[in-house]
C-alpha cells in the first residue's frame, strides 16, 4: 500500500512554539528553537513510526491568498507572526530539504488547500493519505482513504477518518464540518460565523436542517432570538462557509515520484543540528542505534524517545515546558558518544598520573614556572564541611594535564597537600577553575588558603549568558564540541548510593580529573576573550571574582542557630496545627485528613460544592493548589483555614524542623551555600537553607528569625538598604519628581500620589498613598499597565502621563 503523509507546516510550528512559550528553548546564540525543535520531532516521529512511502510538507506562502482577496479581515485576528517563528521558518525549510522531503508552497493558496488538492489526487492513484495537522477544518477532507493524523494533547496521535469526524462533532457527514465552521466560526482563522452561535447550537441546527443552504431556506421554522440571529447574518454565514471551504483544485500536479521517501542527507542535517545545538536529537537519530549495537550494557537513548517526541504535545499550549527539558538532557547523559562531538578517545592528550613524591616535586617546579594554572579537586562528597579530598588535577597547556592522587588518611593527606601550599598561596600565579568557591573551601578545610588572581569559568559564563546553564559538561559541548567523561561514567551505571570515588580505577579517575582541568583551561581561553569582547571584564574581575572569596568566607563563618527556640516553636506550631485541624473539621462538617490534597478536594468540591466547574488534574484528582484555593477563600470560611494549615505545615517542614538538621556537627553552625550563578537578575540566592524564602513580615517568619543568633557573647547587627529599588528607579529614569522627593527626604509614595492625583503632598490621603505605592512597586516588579489598572481599579487612561 502506498502511504502518503502531508504535513501542514505552520499548524505544527505554531503548536510547538506555544507549547514552550513559558519556557522557550533558547540556544547559546540566543535563537529561540522551540518551533524548530517541535517540528523536527514531529517529522522524525512520523518517519519512524509510520514509515510513509511518500511524504511532503506544505507551507503557507508569503503574501495574500484568495481568501484575503475576498475578505479583508481574514486572519486579522491572528496577530502578526511572532518574530521567533519568522526566524525559524527558513531554518525549518532547510531542515526539510536536508531530509530530502519536498517543500510545497503555492502562491495564492494556503497549505490546507494544497494538502486538500494533493490528498484527493493521491487517493485516485491508490494512495492512503494522512494529513498531519491539529486543525479541525481538515475534517471536511477525510474519506475512505484520506485521514487526519492529529497530535493529541495527551501525547501520540489519533487517526481520524469519516466515522471519527462524524462522532466527534455529532454530524451525519464529515462534509458538514464546512457548514459547522460556517455557523460557529473559527477564531484562529478569523472565520466570523454567525454571532451568538457556538458549537452546540451549530451542531443542533445541522442535525435538524442538514446544511446551511437548507437552514437559510427554512428560517421560518426557527423561533425567537435564534431566528433573528440567523436571518440577520445570512450573508456572513454564507461567506463564512466560503472561507471554511478547503479548495481541492489548486493548480498543482501530483507527481508520485517527487514525493517518494528518501534517505536523509546526513552530513547536511548533522551540520544544521549542530548549528542549532540539537545534540540530544542528533544523538537520538544517529547514535542510539550504534551505541546500542556496540555496547549492549549501556542504556541507549532509543529506549525512551517518547519523552522528547511526545512530551511536546502532552502539554497544552502555554503550559510550562520545564519538565520536558531535563528529560531531554538526561538522555544525553546516557549516551556514550554524542553526534558531532569529540571525546577523550578522539583527541590527542597527555594525561599524567603523578604518583610519588619525586614526581610531585617535578610537577610543582613546573607549576611555579607558569603565570596561570587551572586546577580542580576531587572529593568524597559535595558538602565541603564533611567531604575529604581525594586528588588534585592541574593543567597549564591545552591537552596536557596532571592528576595527583592524595592519601586517604586526613593527616597523610594534609602532609602531601603541604607540598602544594606555596603554589596555592602564590599571589603571582593566576588560578583557573570551574566553581572555584568549592575548591577554595575544600583547601581551606585542610588549612590551605587560595590566593592570587582567579578566573572562574562558571561565573564568566554566567555574566555572558545569565539565563543559560553553566555546568562544565555543558560548556564543553557548546564551546569545544567536546563530550567530557561525566561523573556518572566513573561508576558504570551503579546506583547513586553505591557510587564511591575511592573504589574507582585510578587510571580512569586520572583521565576524568585531568580532563576536567584540561577542558576548564581551554574554556578559560575562550571565555576570557568573550568577557573582553562584551565589556564584562570589570564586572568579572572587580566584582564577581572578589565576591566569590567573600561568599566563601561567609559560608565558612556560618551562623549560629538557637535549636532550643526552634524546638519550642515546633511544639507550639504543631499544637496550632492540631487546633486548626479541629476547626477545619467543624467548619466542614466532616472529619478528614487535611494534609491530603485528594481528601481536601473531595470535601470542597464533592461535599461542599464550592465550585461546580472545579478543575481536575491529570491523575483525576481535584486541583487544590494555592491559586485555586485563594479564589475560593470568600466562598467558605474553611478554605482560609486550610490555607493557614498548609502554610504552617510548610514552614514546619522547610524551616522549623529542618534547620536543626542543617547544623554541622563539627562547627555547631549552619553553613548556607550562596549561589552566585543562579538568578539571571544578578542577585544572589542561597540553599540549605534558602534564606530568600523565609517569610518577611508575618508571624511565622518571626519564629524563624528568632532562631538565628550571634556567637556566644556577641550581638547580631542587621543592616538593610531602605527602598533601594525605588532609589535605583529614580536614578535610572532620571525622573525629576522622584529625585527631588528622595533628595529632600519626602515620603516617596506620598510624593508619587501627589503627582498622580495632582494634589499638594499635604493633601494626599492614605488611600492615595497606598495606590501610589502599588504603582511604584508595580513598575519595579513588572506589572503591565493593564494588570496595574486592574489591581487598583483605576481606568487605564489615567495612567498615561
Amino acid at each position, binding site marked *: 500500500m502506498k502511504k502518503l503523509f502531508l504535513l501542514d507546516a505552520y499548524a505544527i510550528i505554531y503548536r510547538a512554539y506555544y507549547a514552550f*512559550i513559558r519556557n522557550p528553548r533558547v540556544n547559546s546564540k*540566543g535563537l529561540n528553537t522551540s518551533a524548530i525543535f517541535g517540528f523536527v520531532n514531529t517529522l522524525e516521529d512520523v518517519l519512524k513510526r509510520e514509515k510513509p512511502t511518500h511524504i511532503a510538507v506544505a507551507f503557507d506562502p508569503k503574501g495574500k491568498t484568495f481568501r484575503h482577496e475576498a475578505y479583508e479581515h481574514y486572519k486579522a485576528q491572528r496577530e502578526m*507572526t511572532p*518574530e*521567533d517563528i519568522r526566524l525559524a521558518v527558513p531554518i525549518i525549510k532547510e531542515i526539510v530539504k536536508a531530509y530530502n522531503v519536498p517543500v510545497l508552497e503555492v502562491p495564492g493558496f494556503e497549505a490546507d488547500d494544497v494538502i486538500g488538492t494533493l490528498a484527493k489526487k493521491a487517493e485516485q492513484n491508490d494512495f492512503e493519505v494522512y494529513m498531519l495537522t491539529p486543525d479541525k477544518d481538515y475534517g471536511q477532507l477525510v474519506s475512505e482513504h484520506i485521514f487526519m493524523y492529529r497530535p493529541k494533547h495527551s501525547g501520540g496521535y489519533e487517526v481520524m477518518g469519516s466515522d471519527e469526524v462524524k462522532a466527534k462533532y455529532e454530524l451525519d457527514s464529515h462534509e458538514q464540518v464546512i457548514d459547522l465552521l460556517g455557523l460557529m466560526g473559527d477564531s484562529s482563522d478569523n472565520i466570523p460565523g454567525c454571532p451568538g452561535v457556538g458549537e452546540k447550537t451549530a451542531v443542533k441546527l445541522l442535525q435538524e436542517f442538514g446544511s446551511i443552504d437548507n437552514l437559510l431556506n427554512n428560517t421560518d421554522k426557527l423561533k425567537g432570538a435564534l431566528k433573528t440571529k440567523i436571518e440577520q447574518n445570512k450573508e456572513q454565514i454564507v461567506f463564512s462557509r466560503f472561507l471554511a471551504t478547503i479548495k481541492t483544485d489548486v493548480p498543482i500536479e501530483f507527481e508520485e515520484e517527487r514525493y517518494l521517501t528518501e534517505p536523509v542527507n546526513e552530513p547536511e542535517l548533522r551540520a544544521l543540528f549542530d548549528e542549532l545545538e540539537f545534540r540530544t536529537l542528533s544523538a537520538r537519530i544517529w547514535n542510539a542505534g550504534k551505541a546500542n549495537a556496540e555496547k549492549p550494557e549501556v542504556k541507549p537513548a532509543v529506549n525512551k524517545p517518547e519523552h522528547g517526541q511526545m512530551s511536546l504535545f502532552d502539554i497544552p499550549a502555554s503550559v510550562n515546558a520545564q519538565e520536558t527539558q531535563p528529560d531531554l538532557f538526561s538522555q544525553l547523559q546516557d549516551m556514550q558518544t554524542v553526534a558531532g562531538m569529540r571525546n577523550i578517545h578522539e583527541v590527542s592528550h597527555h594525561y599524567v598520573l603523578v604518583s610519588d613524591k619525586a614526581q610531585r616535586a617535578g610537577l610543582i617546579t613546573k607549576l611555579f614556572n607558569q603565570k596561570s594554572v587551572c586546577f580542580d579537586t576531587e572529593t568524597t562528597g559535595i558538602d565541603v564541611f564533611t567531604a575529604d579530598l581525594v586528588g588534585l588535577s592541574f593543567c597549564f597547556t591545552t591537552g596536557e594535564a596532571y592528576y595527583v592522587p592524595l592519601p586517604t588518611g586526613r593527616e597523610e593527606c594534609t602532609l602531601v597537600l603541604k607540598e602544594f601550599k606555596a603554589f596555592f598561596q602564590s599571589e603571582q600565579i593566576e588560578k583557573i577553575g570551574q566553581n572555584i568557591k568549592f575548591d577554595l573551601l575544600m583547601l581551606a578545610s585542610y588549612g590551605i588558603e587560595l590566593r592570587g588572581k582567579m578566573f572562574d569559568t562558571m561565573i564568566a559564563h554566567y555574566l555572558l*549568558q*545569565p*539565563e543559560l546553564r553553566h555546568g562544565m559538561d555543558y560548556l564543553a559541548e557548546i564551546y569545544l564540541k567536546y563530550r567530557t567523561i561525566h561523573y556518572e561514567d566513573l561508576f558504570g551505571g551503579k546506583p547513586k548510593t553505591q557510587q564511591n570515588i575511592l573504589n574507582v580505577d585510578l587510571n580512569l579517575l586520572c583521565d576524568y580529573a585531568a580532563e576536567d582541568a584540561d577542558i576548564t583551561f581551554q574554556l578559560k581561553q575562550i571565555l576570557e576573550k568573550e568577557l573582553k569582547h562584551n565589556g*564584562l571584564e570589570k*564586572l568579572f574581575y572587580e*566584582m564577581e571574582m*572578589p*565576591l566569590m572569596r*567573600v561568599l566563601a568566607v*561567609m559560608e565558612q*563563618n556560618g*551562623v549560629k542557630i*538557637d535549636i532550643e*527556640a526552634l524546638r519550642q516553636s515546633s511544639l507550639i506550631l504543631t499544637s496550632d496545627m492540631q487546633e486548626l485541624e479541629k476547626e477545619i473539621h467543624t467548619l466542614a462538617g466532616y472529619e478528614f485528613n487535611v494534609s491530603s490534597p485528594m481528601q481536601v478536594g473531595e470535601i470542597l468540591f464533592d461535599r461542599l460544592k464550592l465550585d461546580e466547574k472545579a478543575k481536575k488534574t491529570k491523575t483525576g484528582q481535584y486541583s487544590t493548589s494555592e491559586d485555586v484555593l485563594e479564589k475560593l477563600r470568600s466562598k467558605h470560611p474553611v478554605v482560609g483555614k486550610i490555607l493557614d494549615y498548609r502554610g504552617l505545615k510548610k514552614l514546619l517542614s522547610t524551616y522549623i524542623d529542618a534547620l536543626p538538621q542543617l547544623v554541622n556537627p563539627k562547627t555547631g553552625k549552619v553553613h548556607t551555600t*550562596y549561589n552566585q550563578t543562579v538568578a*539571571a537578575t*544578578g*542577585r544572589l540566592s*542561597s540553599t540549605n537553607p534558602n*534564606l*530568600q524564602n523565609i517569610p518577611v513580615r508575618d508571624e511565622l517568619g518571626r519564629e524563624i528569625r*528568632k*532562631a*538565628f*543568633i*550571634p*556567637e556566644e*557573647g*556577641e*550581638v*547580631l*547587627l*542587621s*543592616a*538593610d*538598604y*531602605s*527602598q*533601594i*529599588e525605588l*532609589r*535605583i*528607579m*529614580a*536614578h*535610572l529614569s*532620571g525622573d525629576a519628581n*522622584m*529625585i527631588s522627593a*528622595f*533628595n529632600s527626604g519626602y515620603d516617596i509614595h506620598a510624593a508619587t500620589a501627589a503627582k498622580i492625583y495632582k494634589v499638594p503632598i499635604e493633601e494626599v490621603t492614605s488611600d492615595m498613598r497606598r495606590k501610589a505605592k502599588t504603582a511604584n512597586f508595580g*513598575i*519595579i516588579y*513588572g*506589572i503591565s499597565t493593564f494588570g496595574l489598572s486592574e489591581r487598583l481599579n483605576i481606568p487605564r487612561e489615567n495612567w498615561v502621563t
Partner: protein
Amino acid sequence: MGYVETIFGRKRFLSDINSQNSIVRGFAERNAVNAPIQGSAADIIKIAMIRIQDELEKRKLKSKMTLQVHDELNFSVPQVELDEVRELVVREMEQAIALKVPLIAECGVGANWLEAH
C-alpha cells in the same frame, strides 16, 4: 540581540522585545524595566559586601558577616566592636555607589535576627 544592562554593565538579553506577539513581548518589556533595577540592587550590595569584608580583615576585627538576604546584611559582632562595625557597615553600604539620590542603610542590633531586623 537586544539587551538591557545595570548601572555596572551587567547584561540581560531580551530576545523577545520586538516580538509581534503581545504576550511574548509583554514578558520581555517587563523584564526590560525590572532587570536593570533588580540587577543594579544586586551589584550595589555585592560591592558593599566586598568592601566591608576587606575592611573587617584590614582592621583585624573579630566581627563576622554571617548572612546576606535580599538587600540586607547580617553580622555577629562582639560588643566592643559594635560602634566601629556599625559605622563601617552603614558607610560602605551607603557609599557603594554615588547615585542621583542618596542610598540609605538602616541598622538594628539585637540578641537574635528578629530583634535586630
